[in-house]
């Protein structure tokens, strides 16, 4: 699949260029690459958040973009959990409401308070149920976002730079959580990072460069892999 952007005057940016990737059930895939290499775009394509310029995205044997909006939304709500790099909590909602937000879609689930609390216990924030995002640290916000991603029991977790802006200790906590989750309810994790040290957590590692992808072994990665001109 490919994802191209037109920037006017005939300039086309190939954010993802003819990538063919198969992720099996139970894998923990790590994608590394420098900023602008197309990692986040690829993750969004996998999650059905953007339509590919060409190619198909198959989930459980179904072509995601051949489905209608309702079915696509159902897959996003029930099969996939997202953790975004950007702060993605709704600032006007408290932690409880942020975590249970996905249960509104597509079929409203009620009485999820106990589940929310359990998830907050899992991410170590059970004492922050009533707090608002502005009262949380960046690391805590990321953990709330993780709890939110898990509330609908997704089979696939897509995590975009979940450890960015975190100190080493918090980064370690987050990775421990992801491993714990991977061995628990979530069977497949795709994580994007520019931190090469985290590649060792993956069962498969891919490196993206200028929209192209290649499989690498974590021990082969060097810091020079992240050096290069940004493409977008």
């Amino acid at each position, binding site marked *: 699949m490919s994802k191209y952007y037109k920037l006017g005057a005939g300039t086309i940016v190939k954010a993802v260029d003819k990538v063919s990737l198969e992720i099996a059930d139970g894998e923990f895939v790590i994608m590394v690459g420098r900023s602008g290499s197309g990692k986040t775009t690829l993750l*969004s394509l996998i999650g059905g958040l953007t339509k590919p310029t060409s190619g198909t995205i198959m989930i459980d044997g179904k072509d995601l973009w051949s489905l209608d*909006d309702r079915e696509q*939304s159902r897959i*996003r709500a029930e099969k996939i959990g997202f953790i975004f790099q*950007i702060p*993605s909590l*709704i600032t006007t909602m408290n932690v409880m409401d942020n975590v249970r*937000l996905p249960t509104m*879609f597509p079929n409203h689930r009620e009485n999820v308070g106990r589940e929310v609390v359990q998830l907050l216990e899992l991410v170590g924030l059970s004492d922050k149920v009533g707090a608002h995002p502005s009262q949380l640290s960046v690391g805590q916000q990321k953990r709330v976002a993780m709890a939110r991603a898990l509330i609908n029991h997704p089979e696939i977790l897509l995590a975009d730079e979940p450890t960015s802006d975190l100190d080493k200790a918090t980064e370690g906590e987050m990775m421990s959580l992801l491993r714990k989750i991977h061995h628990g309810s979530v069977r497949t994790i795709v994580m994007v990072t520019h931190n090469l040290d985290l590649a060792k957590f993956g069962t498969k590692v891919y490196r993206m460069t200028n929209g192209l992808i290649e499989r690498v072994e974590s021990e082969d990665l060097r810091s020079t892999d992240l050096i290069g001109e940004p493409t977008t």
Partner: protein
Amino acid sequence: MRGTPVRTATVVIAVAVVVSLLFSTNVLTTALEHGAEIENARLGADLVILPPSFSWAYSYGRVNSSVSVVGPTTGIIWNGSSYNIELTYLPGDIVGTITTLTGVKDASPQLYAGTLNDSKQASKPLNMIAIDPATDFTVLSWLGPQQNSKLEGDQAVAGAGTGLVEGQELRWNGLTLRVVGILEPTSTSLDEGIFLPLGVAYRASQAALGTPDQFPFKPGQITGVLVRVEPGTSPPVIAQEIRPYLSAAKVLEASPLARTVGVETSGVAYYGLVVAGVMAVAVIVLIASVFSMTVNERRRQLGLFRSLGATRLFIFSSILEEVGAVALVGGIIGLGVGQLVVYFGELYLSAAFEVTLLLPPTVDLVPFIIQSLIFGVGIGALASTYPAFVASVMDPYEAIRRGE
């Protein structure tokens, strides 16, 4: 629109203004039309058809007539004035003929039945005028709003100057009539009349055959026909149309004075609704702009919702619901403001038009209230359709990125 109180207030005020304008225009127009209808009915007829022996000796008009002749030989009450005619009659079936003419709104017969000249019952001679309660539009309209405007059986209504009271029984030429209503003062000869149903007069006439001095007319005869033309129709034109049918009758025309009330009333309604319409368009543009800004600012949030599983329909309907709720608040406030406009508008219009405004009873305001609220919420929904559509079709990934 949480967190944007100024914008929310702008939308609420905009909707409130339009709703108040629509509501007050509707209510005032109805009040004005109703009032004008009553006033117009009270002004009398546009045309009067009389027997050929009618003596053309009087100036006439719909209001402020200079006619002052009232007496035993008076034949017909027209525009509040009595006309002295010789006692000849017209056939009653001409009413049907006149009614069928294009441009004729109402036609009602009157019959001078005689005079009540009994000092025990009335301090002065009173004209006994028979009317057709079913078609009458000149006499019963002078009854007060609380009085039953139906006249049935041996009932009668009396002018304000007769000295009679409601419930009083009158005996006249073997008839017993019960006064069921007193007309409001007219300062015309209507005040000196007693009005009874035509059918009662005919039955009495039939029963009194052989005593023609009491009832000189025969059943089916009338003294004249009062005609009201359709709005926008010229009375002289209708008079011209009537004359060929009734060569043996005189057709008199009223002055065009009263027609202006109806015309100006419709003018007020027209301009009020045009202003409301123009403002509605402006408000639609305003709300669309406000919500386009809001959608733009909430791009990331909407993208996040989509990524969490919200459907396009959910995003679309959420925005419409939000606008609907804000517009509903605006509509409710608008109704309150509209009520104030109605209050002050009533004062102004009644002074400006010199007509009575009869506000609809509270229960009759319900359709106006519902209509205005639907209109307010409707323009909100219409205005937000485009921003809601744009929000619903946004690519979630692009929405999140551009919203950063």
